[in-house]
């Protein structure tokens, strides 16, 4: 800041207009330059500063001058300058000083990672930091396509790297990939990672899917990894080896202590394979990441990334407004209007695979405690509910129009069924359907009934989240208007998603309509086993994920088929079929498409945030 004020003073004192005259020697003082046709920043830097790559100095000097004098331009995109723009070309000394300042991008997180070893954490904040430090075979980019990192090729059936039966996958590894200490990344690192995850001596978070589906992981040679599956596992590409541990660092520890639970590397990441190394981590305060000169793509342009831990969302908003942070995380839809009013900050919504959903309790087994309301068994009642609630209005009013109701759980992905939005807001149609299904208000108490049973549904979501509670109030009103009564019974978020075996409220069927934000487990892979018959939990198999009691052969067939379908186009067709069935039978209703909301300051360039591996392209980021 002080340097920029100094530059401005120098400029005022030594104002020498030089309208684009080419001079052989670089000037020692600043000058004002007007852009001519066919000029480029690289060319100007080449001409005036001696080297094209010094162009950031021109950008920084011009943008600083813009703050004092608006006749100069603000260069938002160095790749695009227009003739007639007024620029400041700094003298060589000033340029050198500007370039010597480290290029930094700052971000704020709400919580600090509990561990930087991906096997020991499921915390989202840890995973996004690890995107920058420790990628695996590939990262999923902002178009949900694989961006190769440690792998040299993405295996498919066409290129022969996936066997005919789909059980053997051969992955050639990137021969340029190195650890930050110079050791090459080899297949042995991956084999070691697998061994550490499945070894019972390590208290890892989960062994899924390594222990469940992988029969063996072998190194055919230094740069060829072979995975052998015990059964076809469709989401293999998104769930296996999204990170890798350095064998040369951790194996000695494992052999000495019998476990890597207490390894210093788990927090200190002394050796990494990503674009940045962890230079400093002051607990609860911040992390400083520095460019990794040994990164296989070459040293990133950005010098440092500063990660600040800011637990309060209002404080994050203050930091965004003051420009103390370049990337803000996890904003709510209500914040979007505030951010859009700021001139130098963009709102970025990213497909994350999450959709705020309504699930219906369709259990009908012998255990009465688990069963849902009998009315829900009739598809006409579910269709009536879909017509009765105006989800569009909810998105407009409660979420400030920042999003819309999704058609299927795979909204915005190629797997989404295109004709999913069948149920427009139509309370008259809802009433007609309910009448047809036999639910009428015989006793005049405001809610419909049939055979002595009142149509009152138990509506459940997590307590304490304001926007959810507001949605409940609004939905209750819509449903009351068509004669459906609602009892709200919210649960604490820390037990809400407990499994049947752990007595979770949803898993044990204590709801009729349950609302939460749901994502397929292997996102961006669409596979989701929570709709399968076999996943209905019971005392014999308490770990099942199908808490809705849906057992429909018509739905089962395409789900089973997609699990083993390796042809991407055929898989999309299967999901369209699934979407059609789920929509027609109203097994699921979308409340709002729950994309992640980020803010990115305009000074941070090339930041493309992915919904799967958020910071996958940090090697391309620049900040000026």
């Amino acid at each position, binding site marked *: 800041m002080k340097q920029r004020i100094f530059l401005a003073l120098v400029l005022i004192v030594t104002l020498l207009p030089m309208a684009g005259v080419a001079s052989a020697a670089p000037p020692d003082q600043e000058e004002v330059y007007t852009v001519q046709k066919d000029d480029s920043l690289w060319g100007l830097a080449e001409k005036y500063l001696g080297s094209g790559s010094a162009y950031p100095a021109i950008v920084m000097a011009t943008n600083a001058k813009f703050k004092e004098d608006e006749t100069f331009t603000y260069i938002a995109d160095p790749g695009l300058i227009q003739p007639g723009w007024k620029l400041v070309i700094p003298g060589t000394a000033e340029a050198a000083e500007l370039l010597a300042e*480290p290029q930094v991008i700052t971000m704020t997180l709400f919580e600090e990672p509990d561990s930087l070893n991906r096997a020991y954490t499921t915390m*989202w904040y840890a995973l996004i930091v690890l995107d920058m430090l420790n990628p695996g075979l590939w990262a999923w980019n902002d178009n949900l396509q694989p961006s190769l990192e440690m792998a040299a090729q993405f295996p498919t059936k066409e290129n022969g790297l996936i066997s005919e039966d789909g059980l053997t996958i051969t992955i050639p590894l990137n021969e340029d990939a190195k650890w930050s200490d110079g050791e090459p990344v080899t297949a042995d690192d991956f084999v070691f990672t697998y061994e550490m995850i499945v070894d019972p001596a390590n208290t890892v978070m989960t062994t899924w899917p390594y222990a469940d589906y992988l029969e063996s992981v072998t190194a055919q040679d230094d740069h060829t990894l072979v995975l052998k599956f015990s059964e076809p596992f469709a989401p293999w590409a998104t769930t296996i080896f999204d990170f890798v541990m350095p064998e040369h660092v951790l194996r000695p520890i494992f052999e000495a202590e019998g476990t890597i639970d207490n390894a210093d590397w788990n927090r200190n990441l002394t050796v990494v394979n990503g674009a940045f190394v962890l230079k400093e981590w002051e607990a609860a*305060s911040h992390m400083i990441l520095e460019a990794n000169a040994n990164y296989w793509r070459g040293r990133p342009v950005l010098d440092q990334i500063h990660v600040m831990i800011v637990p309060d969302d209002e404080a994050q908003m203050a930091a965004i*407004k003051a*420009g*103390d942070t370049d990337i803000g995380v996890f904003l709510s839809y209500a914040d979007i209007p505030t951010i859009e009013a700021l001139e130098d900050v963009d709102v970025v919504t990213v497909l994350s695979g999450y959709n705020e959903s309504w699930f219906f309790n369709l259990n009908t087994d012998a255990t009465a405690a688990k069963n849902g309301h009998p009315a829900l068994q009739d598809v006409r009642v579910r269709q009536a509910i879909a017509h009765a609630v105006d989800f569009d209005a909810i998105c407009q009013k409660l979420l400030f129009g920042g999003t819309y109701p999704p058609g299927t759980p795979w909204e915005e992905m190629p797997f989404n069924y295109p004709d999913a939005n069948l149920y427009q807001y139509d309370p008259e149609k809802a009433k007609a359907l309910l009448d047809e299904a036999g639910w009428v208000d015989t006793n005049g108490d405001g809610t419909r009934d049939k055979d002595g049973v009142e149509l009152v549904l138990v509506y459940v979501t997590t307590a304490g989240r304001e926007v959810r509670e507001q949605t409940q109030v609004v939905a209750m009103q819509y449903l009351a208007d068509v004669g459906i009564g609602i009892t709200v019974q919210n649960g*604490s978020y820390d037990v809400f998603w407990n499994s049947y075996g*752990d007595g979770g409220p949803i898993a044990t069927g204590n709801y009729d309509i349950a609302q939460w934000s749901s994502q397929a487990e292997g996102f961006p892979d669409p596979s989701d086993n929570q709709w399968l018959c076999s996943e209905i939990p019971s005392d014999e198999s308490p*770990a099942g994920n199908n808490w809705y009691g849906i057992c429909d052969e018509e739905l089962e067939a395409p789900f089973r088929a997609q699990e083993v379908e390796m042809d991407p186009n055929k898989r999309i067709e299967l999901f369209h079929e699934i979407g059609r069935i789920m929509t027609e039978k109203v097994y699921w209703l979308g409340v709002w498409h729950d994309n992640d909301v980020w803010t990115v300051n305009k000074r941070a360039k090339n930041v493309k945030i992915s919904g799967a591996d958020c910071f996958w392209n940090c090697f391309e980021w620049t900040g000026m």
Partner: protein
Amino acid sequence: MTRYIIRRLLQGILLLLIISVILFALTNAMGDPLASFGGRRRIRSSDRERLTRQLGLDKPVLVQYAVWLIGNDWMDVDVDGDGLPEAKGTRRGILRGDWGNSFMEKRPVNEIIAERLPNTLLLMLTCEVVIILLSLAIGMYSAIRQYSLFDHVFTGLSFIGYSMPIFWLALILMFVFAVYFKKWGLPIYFPTVGKYDLTVGPTVLQVAWHMVLPVATISIMSIASYSRYIRSCMLEVIGQDYIRTARSKGLTEGVILARHAFKNAALPLVTIVGMDLPLLLGGAVVTESIFAWPGMGRLFWNAAQDTDIPVLMGVMTLISAAVVVFQIITDMTYTFLDPRIRYD
């Protein structure tokens, strides 16, 4: 006197044991530590069972307390979570100096506390000094110049300052002095969050600059209440007979205040400060969260949300021990300050 101190110390140890039992029971009733383990993804039921056994959470609460207190290296534990104990435990218990490992961060609790404690002490001791100086100054001046303009203004400000919710005050200070000052182009503006500017580094100036707003937030509320207290104590002291005697002896007002009134009026402050000092260790939960100051308050808050029992027990044991010790010290200090008080 020595016997009194020894007796108090022994009572203190017994008290700490009882406190630790109550705290352990309460933290274990708070919720399921494993519930926070699944971040955005659920962990499987089989993993939860394994983790429960590996962390020793399947044992009865009394056994878990015994392990926390005296360790488990004298018994077999289930290291791999398969349900069968096979190896000796590694924990030595808090009585032998092992505070346990955090469930979330999987590293020793005393390491975590040692990282945060200096930040908290820096913030809180600065606050305490500011609070003492300013409340003494304001309280005494208000009492000496009772019903003057100064007194009325500061009485009003005290009521306002005391009634403001601290999170609101923190955010208002942050938005006005950090965001809007910068937006309006004022030459001096404060930073929003953090302990220091990462591009500059942890210099004394940086840390001090970043401390201004958090210290102001915490101090305003305490100054509001303590200054009232000092004011009323001072008024009471000024009305005493010995002050009239001193005046009638011919001493100047200034000497009376300095030699007689000040010490007597400040005595109750010793009690308050004595109670405050151990609580300093707990930090200021809300202020630290809002200003992103890496202290003990935030540690405690996060641990409470995650039901990270070893961290909670560690922090609360530390504070309890400090309270017990400081109570004894305060009582001892009284005997020095007030000759009328003696213990036997």
